[in-house]
């Protein structure tokens, strides 16, 4: 019987989320990759084979769950954990020593203890084994149920980035009495310290007014070439990297790539809320996504023999690693020079769209319509491309106001992604996020936007999701002109969007009708729903579709057969409906309930809302002005 071991560490999302600058995002995703890489190197040194992630000699874009062939002994796990801890310690102390050496107007007598606490208590480390990969994964989840954190308490004001944890400053740890705390005194030192750091590293790394905690400072400084260089030197002595084996391992060049990439002169940071900045502030587009139901896919593999499961996982990981690496390497091709990929590791990705190239290094701010059109080919070209993926992807896209803090933008990205997931997957959620914190959202399956999808053949075994034959027939007429839903829009004078069609016509109709309560009730009481005595009509919404998007789209959108997801007997998605999963509306839905489902007030309301939100969000997304 085959045996497998799974290793992971936490927190990952929480670690990445505490970000103010683009640099923080890069820094944290790089750190996590680096730590995963360290684990993989140690595992391979111990003579084990890693099934996932594939290609362990690349230091960037590494997912943080390692699936290993073989059952590792507790002693071996301790060795791996020790290597992981040592690597983190090297990174943290590398930063500490750099500061002590370069910002030397203070005696750093007190802060040693706090740095040590962060060396010891930043990460939770988990491992588990099993007869099959699925079993090992289940055991790992069992282990994770108890978590393994130790909280580092702090005194005084908190980091301005996370709102918790102590601000790293030269007198950190001098006193632990909250009652004797002198904020004004501390504030003066904090200002001087961050000013000195900023002068040494440059404002691209740290601004003089920031107040960061130790791990946040580490994320920031780790992208500095001196620190990475230093880390590489240490890790060479550290037995997992052997200069003689370099062909198999990551080279110094790999390590340094992040420093090159983030060099202040080449790295156009999106300085999102600099107060003194003369430069104009622009709206930016953020997208966050990942593959759909990877775990369900793995589960379907698990019903077969362990060898097949192992092979399937390996193939999957190879494909995703290849995709991530290419995406990162060729981001200019993929993003059409509109933005940057922040990470693409495993089936996760995060990117930002903010400018378009108008020649000789001149960048001009992006308009929302550019972003919208980029997503027209996301699934068919960026996700699938020439290497169709086994699973589909869901994306949350946020078009964010220039004043929205980065952490909020990221949270909205997560929320948008989860809207895309929870309404049925294989789709994109568009969010317009205003400076006031309000937002609009519209969620749409890829096939309504991506005309590349319409030629995606069923014969291709790598994707199970395909358009039903009848829908293909319906799309046939549209296919000739390659007009997706949005581009089919024609205003009152029948002018298409590409010819300057005015979205306001549709938007105004929606707004007027909504203010006259033409779309029925918004909220139903439990009684109304259970007694089934509310009638919601889609007539008005569908008529609007007919008027502005034409008969062909009206036929498609009004057909209840295209409203819902379809699944095969292993619960894997086979078709993506406009409204998504039927269980959102009837939690115990079975196909026998189909007649009730399509008449259900919540379904009808969802369709109305879908049209209303299309009208509202389209108003912003089709904007061609800066």
């Amino acid at each position, binding site marked *: 019987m085959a045996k497998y071991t799974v290793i992971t560490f936490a927190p990952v999302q929480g670690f990445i989320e505490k970000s103010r600058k683009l640099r923080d995002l890069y820094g944290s995703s790089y750190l996590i990759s680096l730590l995963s890489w360290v684990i993989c190197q140690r595992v391979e040194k111990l003579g084990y084979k890693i099934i996932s992630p594939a290609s362990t000699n690349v230091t960037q874009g590494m997912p943080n769950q390692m699936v290993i062939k073989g059952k590792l002994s507790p002693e071996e796990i301790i060795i791996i954990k020790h290597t992981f801890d040592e690597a983190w310690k090297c990174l943290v102390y590398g930063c500490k020593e750099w500061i002590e050496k370069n910002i030397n107007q203070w005696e750093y007598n007190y802060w040693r203890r706090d740095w040590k606490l962060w060396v010891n208590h930043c990460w939770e480390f988990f491992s588990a084994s099993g007869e099959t990969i699925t079993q090992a994964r289940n055991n790992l989840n069992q282990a994770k149920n*108890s*978590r393994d954190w130790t909280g580092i308490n702090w005194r005084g004001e908190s980091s301005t980035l996370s709102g918790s944890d102590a601000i790293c400053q030269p007198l950190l740890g001098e006193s632990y009495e909250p009652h004797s705390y002198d904020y004004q005194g501390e504030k003066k030192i904090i200002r001087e310290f961050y000013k000195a750091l900023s002068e040494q590293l440059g404002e691209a790394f740290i601004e003089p007014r920031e107040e960061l905690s130790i791990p946040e400072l580490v994320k920031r400084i780790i992208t500095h070439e001196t620190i990475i260089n230093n880390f590489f030197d240490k890790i060479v002595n550290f037995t997992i990297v052997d200069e003689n084996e370099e062909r198999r391992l990551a080279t110094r060049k790999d390590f340094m790539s992040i420093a090159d990439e983030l060099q202040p002169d080449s790295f156009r940071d999106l300085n999102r809320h600099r107060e003194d900045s003369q430069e104009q502030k622009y709206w930016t587009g953020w997208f966050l996504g990942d593959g759909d139901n990877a775990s369900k896919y793995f589960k379907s593999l698990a019903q077969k023999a362990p060898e097949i499961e192992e092979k399937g996982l390996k193939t999957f990981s190879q494909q995703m690693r290849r995709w991530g690496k290419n995406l990162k390497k060729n981001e200019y091709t993929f993003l059409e020079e509109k933005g940057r990929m922040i990470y693409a590791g495993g089936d996760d990705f995060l990117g930002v769209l903010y400018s378009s190239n108008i020649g000789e290094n001149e960048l001009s701010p992006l308009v929302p319509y550019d972003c919208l059109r980029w997503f027209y080919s996301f699934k068919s070209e960026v996700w699938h491309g020439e290497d169709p993926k086994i699973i589909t992807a869901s994306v949350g896209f946020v078009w964010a106001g220039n004043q929205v803090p980065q952490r909020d933008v990221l949270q909205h990205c997560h929320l948008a992604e989860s809207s895309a997931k929870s309404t049925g997957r294989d789709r994109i959620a568009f969010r317009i996020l205003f400076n006031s914190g309000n937002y609009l959202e519209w969620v749409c399956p890829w096939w309504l936007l991506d005309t590349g999808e319409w030629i995606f053949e069923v014969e291709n075994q790598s994707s199970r999701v395909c358009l039903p034959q009848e829908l293909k027939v319906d799309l046939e007429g549209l296919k000739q002109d390659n007009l997706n839903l949005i581009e089919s829009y024609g205003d009152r004078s029948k002018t298409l969007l590409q010819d300057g069609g005015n979205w306001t016509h549709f938007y105004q109709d929606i707004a007027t009708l909504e203010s006259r309560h033409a779309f029925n009730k918004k909220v139903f009481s439990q009684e109304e729903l259970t007694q089934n005595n509310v009638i919601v009509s889609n007539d008005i919404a569908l008529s609007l579709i007919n008027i502005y998007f034409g008969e062909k789209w009206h036929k498609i959108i009004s057909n209840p057969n295209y409203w819902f997801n379809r699944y095969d007997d292993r619960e894997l998605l086979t078709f993506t409906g406009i409204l998504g999963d039927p269980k959102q509306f009837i939690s115990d839905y079975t196909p026998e309930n189909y007649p009730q489902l399509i008449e259900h007030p919540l379904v009808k309301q969802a369709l109305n809302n879908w049209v209303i939100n299309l009208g509202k969000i389209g108003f912003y997304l089709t904007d061609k002005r800066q």
Partner: protein
Amino acid sequence: MNNVTYNLKYLTIIEPLGFLYGSAGRFLSPENLVGRSGAKFPPSSTTLSGVFAANLNDDERKKLCVAGPFWGKTERVHEEQNFYVPTPLNYLVKNGQIQHKLHWDDQKKGWYDEEGNEPADKFDKSTWIPINQWDNPTTVESPPWRFTPHLHPRLAQDQRRVYIEDEDTPAEDKKGSLFLENAVEMSPDTCLVYLSSQALESGWYRFGGEGHMVEITCIELNHYLQNLLKQPIENQLALITPAVWGSNRLSYRYPVHNQKEKSITPTQQTSDTEYVWNTKTIFTSRAHPFRYRFGNHEDPTRPKLLSRGRYAVPAGTVYVLEDSLSQSWLEWDESWFPREGVSFKRWGCGLALPIKSLQTSG
């Protein structure tokens, strides 16, 4: 150590009059736009304790104990004292229903459902169950509040007009004349609920940040609740409020015998730390920051001091212990709780109820 016996005798009901405040951490400023990510609601028991402290005399204040937060449907709370507490994390909720109740299997060393499976799906977070179904919950509710960004004019301190900066304002003090509050709107007919040792006179009070007004009513706990709180905890328990365990330097997932700070050094903490409970396992999630501001009733004009920042085990955490505690939370030893000025027991930290419906097989 002055051992005060805390008792929880009252239900403190807080009905919002309009918006409530929903941010945590540092106050909003240009360099700290916490916005959405700083959203935290409902307010912790320390917030309510501030309202009490301002209205009690010294003797009463010493005996004060407040636990929460919980919430309820106002009518039901008044009529039958039924309110909602965080769902124990081993009850897996999906689409508003409890799908599995996991139990700890001693032999297989894992959490399993009724059929002995390990559910691998994704489940709903932050759900609540009615306290009158504590022993066998069948219904689940989602929280009745939502965050609404709310733009406020920043008023000048000495005049009744919007604050406008002049040219002399130093750059670092520039704030703008508007600020964004992450306000919380509770659905009508719902209220926040806390347990308390003392009663406040019914009336309107300022509660939480930004001075939002609330109506507070205190009623005496009925027998069901009193008995529930007094039920001795054997070896399975679930927290219904966050628990802060550990020393002044570190926060842990388990209560520790609070030793002198100096004996706990960072490197030795594990070997030196003596856990109070012999724990088989816990079912928990990630740590939540826990801190509050000290009241200063002697000189209210002085800036309020920040307490030490700590980390709490989230409410809903389930502990399975080797040995029976045979004590209700009310009787738990104060030395299990961190102490700084006062014992953390007075914030109702780690208020726990026994879980009986779960069977440990094997």
